Structure formats: C-alpha cells, structure tokens
C-alpha cells in the first residue's frame, strides 16, 4: 500500500438504475444516476458533494462503499479496486470506510439497544473482541459523540432525533475508519448539536487523519467542513473547486442558483422560481 497514493480514487463512474419495464418485449428503460463522475480524495482531506435531491449524491456515496455496482468506472480505495476484490477481501476493506446515513429514524433498529447498534460494525468485522474491550470501545465512542456510556443500555426511541443521529455517527466511528462517507449526516440536527458534531468531525480528522466524503444539501455547513466542493446535477459534475473560491465566485449558473437559495440571517428572503 502506497502511502502517497490518494485514499480514494473514483474514475469515470456511470451507473444506471433499471426502471420497471413498460412493455413486455421492449428493453426496460433506465435512469442514469451517475454519468462519468470522477474524484480524488487525499488522506485527511474532506470533499463535499452538493446538489439537489435526485442529483445522484447518495448513489455516489453508496457506490463508493461498494453498495451499488456501476455499469462503468472504478472505485479505488486504499489502492484496491473495490469491484475487483473477492467478497472476503472487500469485507475486510469495509472497516476502513464507514457510512453515516441521513435518516436518524430509519437507520437504527428499534428493537436493539444502543450499545448493540453501535458495536454492530465492529462485531461484523472483528469477531471475538473481548467483551470488556468491546464495552470500553462502545463507551469511548458514545462519549466521543457527546452521549453517555450509560446510554448503551437504552433503546433508540428513548432519544430525540438529534441524539439518534449521534448514535449513528458513533456506529460509523467504532471501527476507526480512514474514510467516513457522511450522507446528510448533520442535516437533521439542531445548530448547537450540529456545531458539536461538525467540531467533532473536524477534531477526529485532525487527531486521526480521517477523510470525509461529505454529502450535503446544506451549503452553509459545507463551507465549514470541506476543503473542496463538487456540485452534482442530474448525475454529472457541473463544477468542482476549492471551497472558498467556489463560494466566492461560483462559475456555473446552477451553482449560483443553489447558493442563492440558502436562507441567511439578516438577508430578506428572495423568491425562488418554483420548480416542482
């Protein structure tokens, strides 16, 4: 493994979703969710992917984690082509890349205690972690996201929406990954908690050299956490650049429209042209 190689390299990804067949003998129609998408992420770097719903952000996130298989293109994580790996190698590689999902309600199993939920990725990867060490890891991880170690014995429904999203983040951190793919991970949080979690993500990045692929529709948040930003529209990259440059001087009209839609304190609301 070459340490100067990028952590993640995505080359010319194209992914079509098959839609239900309309006529029996016609080929089924498809929807191109990703269209020739490439990106590079260095160790310790944080790249934000922004765009409207349906633009392909989550598909990109899932493909990077090998949860979707593209029709064309490669995903190279830590020097290894994930779609060329045998299943058990891929399983081992997964500990290095974890995902935090968008939905703090749907992504936590309501019948499991928080400790079990948080430890699940660990249990899936490292069978036989000593139970004392396992408990310590759970406690440490819960504390690192601002929860209490005693919360391990509670159920998800005993937490508010914001607290549940921290549980989801703890779950992603427990395998000590190099890459976190965060799909709208802080979108559902209140600002003070959001700030805590964003600060936590920044701390973790400095302490552990974590990299983030940060999927978000919230441009104000993106500006705080990303080094670079990529704007997706209909599965294509319309603009990519260093965060400050992109915010100050967006080149593409679509990027300008996105930035104009962000609500800002002290700035009266501007009517947007309603596009259902």
């Amino acid at each position: 493994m070459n340490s100067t190689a990028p952590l993640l390299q995505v080359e010319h990804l194209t992914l079509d979703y098959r839609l239900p067949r309309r006529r029996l003998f016609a080929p089924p129609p498809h929807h191109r969710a990703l269209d020739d998408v490439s990106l590079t992420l260095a160790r310790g770097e944080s790249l934000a992917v922004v765009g409207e719903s349906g633009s392909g952000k989550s598909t990109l996130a899932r493909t990077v984690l090998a949860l979707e298989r593209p029709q064309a293109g490669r995903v190279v994580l830590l020097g290894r082509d994930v779609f060329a790996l045998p299943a058990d190698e891929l399983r081992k590689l997964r500990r290095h890349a974890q995902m935090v999902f968008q939905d703090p309600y749907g992504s936590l199993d309501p019948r499991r205690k928080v400790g079990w939920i948080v430890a699940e990725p660990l249990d899936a990867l490292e069978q036989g972690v000593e139970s004392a060490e396992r408990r310590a890891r759970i406690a440490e991880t819960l504390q690192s996201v601002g929860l209490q170690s005693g919360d391990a014995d509670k159920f998800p429904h005993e937490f508010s929406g914001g607290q549940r999203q921290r549980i989801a983040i703890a779950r992603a951190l427990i395998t000590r990954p190099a890459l976190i793919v965060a799909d709208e991970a802080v979108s559902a949080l209140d600002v003070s908690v959001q700030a805590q979690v964003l600060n936590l993500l920044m701390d973790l990045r400095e302490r552990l050299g974590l990299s983030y692929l940060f999927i978000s529709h919230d441009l104000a948040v993106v500006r705080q956490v990303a080094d670079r930003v990529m704007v997706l529209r209909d599965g294509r990259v319309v603009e990519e650049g260093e965060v400050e440059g992109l915010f100050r001087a967006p080149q593409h009209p679509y990027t300008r429209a996105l930035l104009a839609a962000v609500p800002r304190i002290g700035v009266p609301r501007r009517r947007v042209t309603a596009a259902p």
Partner: protein
Amino acid sequence: MTLLSVRDLCVTLETPEGPAPILEDVGFDLAAGGSLGLVGESGCGKSMTALAVMGLLPERAVATGEIVFEGCNLLALPEGALCKLRGRRLAMVFQEPMTALNPVKTIGAQVAEGLRWHLGLGRGEAEARAVKLLDRVGVPRPRFAPGLYPHQLSGGQRQRVVIAMALACDPALLIADEPTTALDVTSQAAILDLLAEVAAEAGLALLLITHDLAVVWQNTRSMIVMYAGRVVERGGTHEVFARMAHPYSRGLFAASPGALDAVLPPGRRLAAIPGLVPDPLHRPAGCVFAGRCPRAAADCLPAQPAERRLAPGHAVACLHPHLEATPA
C-alpha cells in the same frame, strides 16, 4: 385578534422511571394571520408543543394549562369535538411527508378525503376542488395527474401534496413542524415561499417549528426560543435577533453555520454549546440552562428565573441577560 393563546401549558409523560415533565409553563399568543417561529434544540419540546395544540399527544401524556383556540379551550374539549377541528380549522404539516400520506391512495383522493369528511362535499365536487388545490401548491396537471401515488413524487412534491391536504378545508392555523428539513435547499426555499404565499392569501396563521435560525428570520414576525421544555426568550423576530438576550439564544446564534459567512481558519471550531439538554427526569431546580451557561452565577441555581420584560413584546427568562446588541 388572538387566534391561539397558550397559557401555563405543562405536559407530563408517564415513563418507567416516573413522570417526566416535558413542557413546563409554556405560554405564547399567535394572532390571526400572524406567524410565530419556534426554535430550540432537539428534545426541547417544540414538537410536543405542536402536538399538544393539535390534541395529538401520546396517550401516556397529561397536559394541564390552557390552549385557547378561537375562544375555546382545546384541553377541555372532548376528543370528538377536537377531531372536527383537526384537519379543518387546525392543520399540520410534518417534517417527513410520508407520515401524512397514505402510500396506497392517489394524491387526488387524499386531498379530496378531507373535503368530503369535514365539509361533506360529494365525490365529484371534492375531486374537482382537490385538482384546484394541487394546482395551487405547484403539483399541477397534466404533469402531475391526481391519479399519481406518493411514491411517484419527489420529497418536495410530496410535501406540496401534504400542504394541499392541510389547506383543503380552509384552516385558521397551520402548524409546520420542520416542514423543509428533509428537503434540499432549492425545494426548501420553494416550500417556504409557498407556505408564506398561501398563508397570506388565506389569512391563516403559521406556527413554524424549525431548528434553522435563518428560516425563522426570513419567515416569521415573532418567535419564541425554547429550552428544556420552557420558553426562554420571546419577542418580535427582528428584535430578538438584534438582542439575543438569553445566553442560550446567543449560543444558538453563534453555532449557526450561516452566522459565519466565511470559511473557518484551520484549527478553529464552530461555537458549539457544550453539553446536552438535561433530560426531563433530571432537570435542575434552578435555571435549566445553568449547566451549560457561560454567564451562570450562584443566584441562577436556587430557582427558575422568572420572565422579565426587556422591551415591549420582548421578554427573557434569565437573571443575567445580554443587554448589548448581538455581535454582527
């Protein structure tokens, strides 16, 4: 004219560990046609306040105080009478549109349902009205046939359908609990525009619950800030923003990524509020914010600070409020 007046609202939830006070002495007024923003951290009771007004509290909850809507106390109303109000004079839009939509019914039928149930319209008339409402909220024919099902729509389009359902019977009050949190930025802006427009057209009052201060700033005339089940600051939206007198309001403001209009220099952090909201079973006797407050002093600990007026219509529940303007 006051449309909704909430007084001394307390909600207690039975839990295995004992009764948990979820809301304590919550009070506010909302004028007919007015708009009130409700902000605060996760778990502070925003949704419970909304559910109390709608009469949709969980079964294990006990509410005391008064919720006076169009002159009658909803807390004293039998369920049957409340049912008639709900969806008719009182309407609500939730964060996740699918909680309000039936996945196996067409959008046209779902909008028509309320019209038939509450207004007693016949099928044909209800369906014709439904089509008009769907047009109005930006889900028009022929692109969006009333025969479509919710799963054939995007999140933003579904939320538009929910708004059409909420508007169907001409309500006086629309409660929107994080109506755009699940949506992307352009749909969010479009939905907020739509809410503002329909509220103005129909003269309905809007109770807007959000964690996004910028959304409150842009969309409401007055606001309350809630913390741990209590109202800690209230006033005209612009006045509250100009002062942010409660240390919690200020903390929220400082933590808003939108409040900073630039990239953080390396190593710098957002102004987070340390710690967590105390859970309802372990709230301190004194000021509920004391454990996280940078201005806390000995006098904050013995008792809950009473609300004090700073200016007409602007009040704060804090012994040492900020008196200087919010930093730019």
